[in-house]
């Protein structure tokens, strides 16, 4: 397991606190995450059911279960990353390094890091309609940044690919500079997006 220090902004007072971004998560870690987040998930679900917020605007990861993803970490190509702060998992990400190759020219066919799953803890979700403003901000951003770093470490020059949930498409394009490619019928018609080596270099420069 590897550990590096990252900064998370606490929404309450805007203060940046130190958190640990852990790599090399094992199956049992995903089980712990699933268990840790399940109670809050139920709470949010109840609140949403009682609210007038239309379903399309509900957090699209509401029904996920990280325990189901645990076996995937046994494969060499899989890597699990998580951010721990105040002794709780604030966000978790699962990447794959041999399942996908780049579709974007001029690097078509070259390997990339594929983000299979990424989620921030339910208590960090910003859903003002039900009073959920979220404890920590930019958890998702920090994790995705780590995926770009992983890609560099693998020799993939920062190339990253993912299928975006509809709510997040704008985020990947504007914050990371990812290029939307196609709606993938093999993946529930989600938009497949890629970060090229050039864009990755620009991103890492911008974020220094």
């Amino acid at each position, binding site marked *: 397991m590897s550990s590096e220090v990252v900064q998370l902004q606490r929404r309450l007072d805007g203060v940046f606190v130190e958190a640990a971004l852990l790599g*090399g998560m094992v199956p049992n870690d995903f089980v712990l995450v699933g268990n840790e987040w399940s109670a809050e998930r139920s709470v949010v679900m109840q609140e949403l059911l009682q609210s007038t917020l239309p379903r399309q605007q509900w957090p699209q990861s509401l029904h996920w279960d990280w325990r189901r993803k645990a076996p995937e970490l046994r494969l060499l*190509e899989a890597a699990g990353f998580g951010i721990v702060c105040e002794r709780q998992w604030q966000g978790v990400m699962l990447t794959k390094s041999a*399942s996908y190759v780049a579709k974007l020219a001029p690097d078509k066919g070259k*390997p990339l890091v594929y983000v299979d799953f990424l989620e921030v803890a339910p208590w960090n979700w910003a859903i003002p309609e039900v009073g959920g403003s979220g404890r920590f901000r930019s958890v998702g951003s920090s994790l995705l940044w780590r995926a770009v770093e992983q890609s560099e470490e693998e*020799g*993939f*020059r920062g190339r990253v690919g993912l299928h975006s949930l509809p709510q997040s498409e704008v985020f990947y394009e504007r914050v990371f500079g990812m290029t939307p490619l196609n709606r993938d019928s093999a993946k529930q018609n989600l938009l497949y997006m890629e970060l090229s080596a050039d864009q990755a270099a620009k991103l890492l420069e911008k974020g220094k």
Partner: protein
Amino acid sequence: MAAKRTMTLNLTDAEMGALEELSEKKELSKTAILRQALRLYQMVDARIERGDKFFFEDETKAKAEVMVL
């Protein structure tokens, strides 16, 4: 990074050639190419064991199953 162990590989000229060609094409070191190959092999094997089937599809949409042990 986890502790690493060293292995020596004896490759034929053809194998080394293929390795170098892939290395250049994918812009990866030869070691990285072999790592990717191992990851890919393990992943495919795991899915086949699960009962999934591995196919190639050509431009005419004709599917041909890839037999991998």
